Structure formats: structure tokens, C-alpha cells
């Protein structure tokens, strides 16, 4: 057999039919469901008298629109409450496993999948959410779908798919101190653009990638969609196995041994062909801060807001001009002189325990600047519990951060956590689109360390210059 990429291997193992003249039919091992993109899909099933074909390959939770204030009370927003009730009712009616808002396992869907051992190497995973690419960190083919496709998977456990092209992003070497997985992701998107990987599945490879923890790998794969990629993948290795082992829904005992034996075959064969290869020198990376209204508009923290003359194409220059107007920034302004009003540490990109530990190292013994409101939103109830056991919540609270319940929160502002018009936010989330965190709000994407440091200084600051214990 010709050498195959990791993507080829997962793809080949899941094609159940390849009818001539049609797309291949791909079997979906795990379908994650949340409240915002599923109600119309369940309605579609009801209208057509269909059932959920495989309820036990489906798992649902609420994360997008729930408040992050203490649990237990009613939800103030009646429309959000109706959407949550719809999911509760749909899961009951169709027999779908469900982690409700008051459950100890509740959390952002892309955080709890891996945390519970639902996400495993070699799987196909979909969810009605573009950041499903996160699960690719485990060497599973995971991608976001729309509501019609959610209905398709509920009804058939399959999706007609055309195979994407394969891209390898090779990062050999070592990430410099202060440069995180988030910075690697932002550095890549800054270089290839927000449509640089459209039509591709990215495999991240090289020792800098395999040197990342699972949390770091999830951050990197999470942002694949921000480069337009269908999915991001990292071949599973000992770090992966160590993370998965013993998790609640992971294979146990003899099943574990045979699973690992299979997972060890999940890497690209030497000589496997990629349609595009990109090499990144980690030594060239820095802590990044976005200055514009998409994640590709990004520069190192020690740089300046770019000059419009630096954009060659007319359309890009106009886009930059519009972005600077929206962001209320002037070309040439040093990034470190940009002040912030709000700080958000959370989201499916950067809300895991390692992210919180990193932010806490910066916050420890310091205090949030008086003009800043800063918020830490753990990705799941389980992470919140671990953080509290480690005393991280104490560090944050003592430093003047708010310590919240888990959810998507201010990443997309569907719940009450939003920016006010004109407010500027250092955010560990994934999108700095206009209005994303609240109408008129201005979002700068950064790593958890950089967000915590900005909270303390009241403006962006190069965390590499900090003396961290």
C-alpha cells in the first residue's frame, strides 16, 4: 500500500460507502450536541418521523448561552431558558446522554469531551460548532458542522463528505520561553491568513508540537478553523495515551491495551504525500496580540500596529483600514501602549487547567489594575474543582479577578457576559470579529499569560520580561 497520512488512515477506516458520482459516506463515531445549533435539527427529525439512530454515540451538554454566575437559580433570559429547555426535552425524548447545567460534568463541549475520555484517537467526531477541530489534538478527525448536518448525523450517524486536501505544518525546534501554543496558533494564522487552510485538513507535526501538553495541543488544533481548515490533527503519542488513560469513558483493562496498540499505528507514514507543506521556525515566534478584526491581523507584543502601506492588495488594505477604525487604533502605535478595560480568561481555546495555572503564575501576589474588570471562566465544572483544590481561585480572587462558573461565556457573549460598546478586552478566546464579545466591543486575542499580565498592568505587556516564580 502507498504511504498514507494520518488523515488518510482515519478517513479510510470510516468510509462506509463510496457510491459513484456521490460524496463518500463517512461514519461518525461521536456526535457532540449543544443547545444553540441543535433545536432545529431535532425538530427536523420529528417532522420526518425519524429517531436518533445511535443515541449512545451522541452526547449533549449546555454551554453557549448559560450564565456563569452561581448555579441553581432560574435563567433570567427567557429566550435562553427556552433554548436550554428545548435541549433537555429533546435529550429526554430521543434518549441522548445529557450533562445538564447542574451536573458536575457540565462544561464547554470541547473541554468535557476530552476530559471524560469521550474523545479518543482515531475517531471521527462532529459537533454543530466550528471549534470541534479542538479534538484533533488526540489524532481524531474532528470538524464543525451546521444544523442540517447535525440532523443528518442524528438520523444516520453518517455524513456525506468530500475528502479535503492534506496540509502539514511542521514545527521543529523548541518554543521560546513565554511563547505558548496560543502564540504558535496565532503565528501560523498571521502567516497563512484566515483562509490559508480552507479546503485542507492540517496535520501539525514536529518536535515543538509533540513537546506540547494535551492542553497546548487542544489550543493549537482549536484554532485550525481560524485558518479556514476543515480540521487540525496531531498524531497520538505517549503524551496522548497518558492523558486519556483512566478517564471515565476511556477503554479499560484489556480493551485499553488493544486500543493503544491500534492508536500507535495512527501517524503519517514516512513518504506520505501532503498537498501543501508549511514549515514554521519556533525561534521566530513571540507572544502575539491581535490588532484587528480577524485572527490573522496579529503582531508580536513588542511590535506596533501596522501601517496601511504594508498591505500589498487593495482589498486587504481596505479591510485593515476598516478594522483599525472599528478597533479605534492608529497605525504605528506600540502594542504595549494599548490599554484594556476588560480581561477574559476562558473559552474552548484557553480555559483548561494548564491555562489557569499559567494565568495564576502571573497573577500570584499581584493585583488587577484599578480600571480593569477581569474574569476567569473555567472550561468545565471539573476544571473549576481541580483549580479550587490547587488554590488557584484564591490567587485569582486575591488579585481581583472574578471567578465564575463554567461555560462559553464572553467568547461569544450569548450569555450576560458581554463587552459594552467601546470597551477593549484582552481575551484568551479565538475570534476578534466585530461585535463578537458584545456590540461595539474591541477584542484582542492573546495567551492566558498575556491576558493576566494585561489585567495587572492595564495595558498589553511583554510577559517574557516578567519575573515569574
Amino acid at each position: 500500500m502507498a504511504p498514507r497520512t494520518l488523515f488518510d488512515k482515519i478517513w479510510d477506516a470510516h468510509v462506509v460507502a463510496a457510491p459513484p458520482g456521490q460524496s463518500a459516506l463517512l461514519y461518525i463515531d461521536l456526535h457532540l450536541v449543544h443547545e444553540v445549533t441543535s433545536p432545529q435539527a431535532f425538530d427536523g427529525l420529528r417532522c420526518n418521523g425519524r429517531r436518533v439512530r445511535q443515541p449512545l454515540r451522541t452526547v449533549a451538554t449546555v454551554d453557549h448561552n448559560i450564565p456563569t454566575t452561581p448555579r441553581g437559580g432560574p435563567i433570567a433570559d427567557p429566550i435562553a431558558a427556552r433554548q436550554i429547555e428545548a435541549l433537555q426535552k429533546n435529550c429526554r425524548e430521543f434518549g441522548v446522554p445529557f450533562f445538564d447545567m447542574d451536573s458536575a460534568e457540565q462544561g464547554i463541549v470541547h473541554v468535557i469531551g476530552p476530559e471524560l475520555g469521550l474523545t479518543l484517537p482515531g475517531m471521527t467526531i462532529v459537533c454543530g460548532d466550528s471549534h470541534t477541530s479542538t479534538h484533533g489534538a488526540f489524532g481524531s478527525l474532528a470538524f464543525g458542522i451546521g444544523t442540517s448536518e447535525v440532523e443528518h448525523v442524528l438520523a444516520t450517524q453518517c455524513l456525506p463528505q468530500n475528502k479535503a486536501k492534506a496540509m502539514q505544518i511542521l514545527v521543529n525546534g523548541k518554543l521560546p520561553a513565554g511563547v505558548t501554543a496560543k502564540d504558535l496558533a496565532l503565528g501560523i494564522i498571521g502567516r497563512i491568513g484566515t483562509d490559508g487552510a480552507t479546503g485542507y485538513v492540517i496535520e501539525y507535526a514536529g518536535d515543538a508540537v509533540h513537546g506540547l501538553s494535551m492542553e497546548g495541543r487542544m489550543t493549537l488544533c482549536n484554532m485550525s478553523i481560524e485558518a479556514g481548515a476543515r480540521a487540525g490533527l496531531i498524531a497520538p503519542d505517549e503524551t496522548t495515551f497518558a492523558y486519556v488513560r483512566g478517564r471515565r469513558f476511556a477503554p479499560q483493562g484489556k480493551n485499553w491495551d488493544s486500543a493503544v496498540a491500534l492508536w500507535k499505528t495512527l501517524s503519517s507514514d514516512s513518504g506520505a504525500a501532503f498537498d501543501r507543506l508549511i514549515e514554521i521556525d519556533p525561534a521566530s515566534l513571540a507572544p502575539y496580540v491581535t490588532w484587528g478584526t480577524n485572527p490573522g491581523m496579529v503582531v508580536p507584543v513588542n511590535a506596533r500596529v501596522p501601517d496601511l502601506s504594508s498591505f500589498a492588495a487593495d482589498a486587504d488594505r481596505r479591510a485593515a483600514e476598516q478594522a483599525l477604525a472599528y478597533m479605534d487604533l492608529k497605525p504605528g502605535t506600540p502594542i504595549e501602549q494599548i490599554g484594556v478595560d476588560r480581561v477574559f480568561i476562558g473559552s474552548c481555546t484557553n480555559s483548561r487547567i494548564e491555562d489557569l495555572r499559567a494565568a495564576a503564575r502571573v497573577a500570584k501576589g499581584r493585583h488587577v489594575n484599578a480600571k480593569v474588570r477581569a474574569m476567569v471562566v473555567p472550561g468545565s465544572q471539573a476544571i473549576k474543582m481541580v483549580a479550587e483544590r490547587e488554590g488557584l481561585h484564591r490567587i485569582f480572587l486575591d488579585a481581583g479577578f472574578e471567578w465564575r462558573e463554567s461555560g462559553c461565556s464572553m467568547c461569544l457573549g450569548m450569555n450576560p457576559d458581554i463587552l459594552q460598546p467601546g470597551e477593549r478586552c484582552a481575551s484568551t478566546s479565538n475570534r476578534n470579529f466585530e461585535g463578537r464579545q458584545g456590540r461595539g466591543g474591541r477584542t484582542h486575542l492573546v495567551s492566558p499569560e498575556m491576558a493576566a499580565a494585561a489585567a495587572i498592568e492595564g495595558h498589553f505587556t511583554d510577559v517574557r520580561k516578567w519575573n515569574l516564580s
Partner: protein
Amino acid sequence: MQPFRKHTGLVAPLDRVNVDTDQIIPKQFLKRIERTGFGQFLFNDWRFSPEGKEIGDFVLQQPRYKSATILVAGKNFGCGSSREHAVWALSDYGFRAVIAPTFADIFSNNSLKNGLLTVRLSEDQVAEITRRAKASEGYQLTVDLETRTVQDSQGFSASFTLDEFARHCLLNGLDDIGLTLQHEKEIATYEAQHAVREELRALTTRP
């Protein structure tokens, strides 16, 4: 699904690149549990001030473009969130086709499932259509999926490609769930070889 064969309509030029789905339908409108009624919120923050006043500069608020059914935009249209609400909003507003140099993957998948045709033309062709739509009031295009062509009455003509299977489904308004279920035997064979995690049953609440 509403079939798409051939459509002639007024063209609105949205002269921006990387139009993301957060702009097409801002998140505050995603809490509805129906598929309908999203058109009124299409491009809300570009169409309306925070006080709800129309922003006259924005292309869709200009009287000459109010009944547009074909949108032409810059590269990477529909990037960002997977929200199908973006497509529902465009369709509900009255759009039948979007023309751009490139589209984000999930957005174009969502569009094709809802009878909204995404037409990929070159940067130059898109620039030319944009120019013509701005220059002549009432500018119309005909998008023909059977011949895979885009034409106006002033001599502009371009052909486009689309995945053959997606084209077949669109032309005939096919329910692709029904097509997939024709492969029951193959699906069942895969399932017989790949066990479900029975432990998950404890998390179901079906009475």
C-alpha cells in the same frame, strides 16, 4: 429543500473580504429554536444603529438594493462560526445566491443544504460584477445552475464549478438524509464491528 435551477435577480455588492458569520447574524439572535424569521436580523449591526435606526450607507439599506436576491462579496465569505442561522438569515431575507471568490467550508456546506447557491468566480470576475452593480442601478444577473453560468444583459458571462453531487441535490431539491439511509446495510455493517459505549446509557433520561 427548495430546488435551485435558474435565477435572475437584482445584485447587491457587499464590497468586503472575510465577511464572518458573526456579522451575517450576530449572536444575540441565535437563541430562537425555529429555522424561520432570521431575515430581519441579517447583518444587523451593519444595517442598524444600536438604537435601531437604519444605517443608510450600508449597501442593503440603500433603496436601489432593497430587493436584491444575489449578493456579491469578497473572498472567504462566511468564515468563522458554523451557525447555519447565517444561511437561514440570508435566505429568509430573500437571497437565492451569493457570489464570491472563495467561501468558508462550513458556510458553503450549510448553504447548499438550504437551497442557497454559493457561486465561486475569480477575483477579477467578482470585481467586475461589483463594479457593474455599483455603476448601473437595477443591475441584474442570471445564475443558471444547469449550465453553471452567470450572465448579465450587458455581455458579462462567466462559468463556475460546483461539486457534481451537491449540484444534483440542489437541482432536484433532494433530501440527502433519505439518500444516506439507502445505505442502511453498509452503515449497519460498520456498527456491528464498532461497539457503542454502554456506560453512556446511564446518562440518558428517557422515561
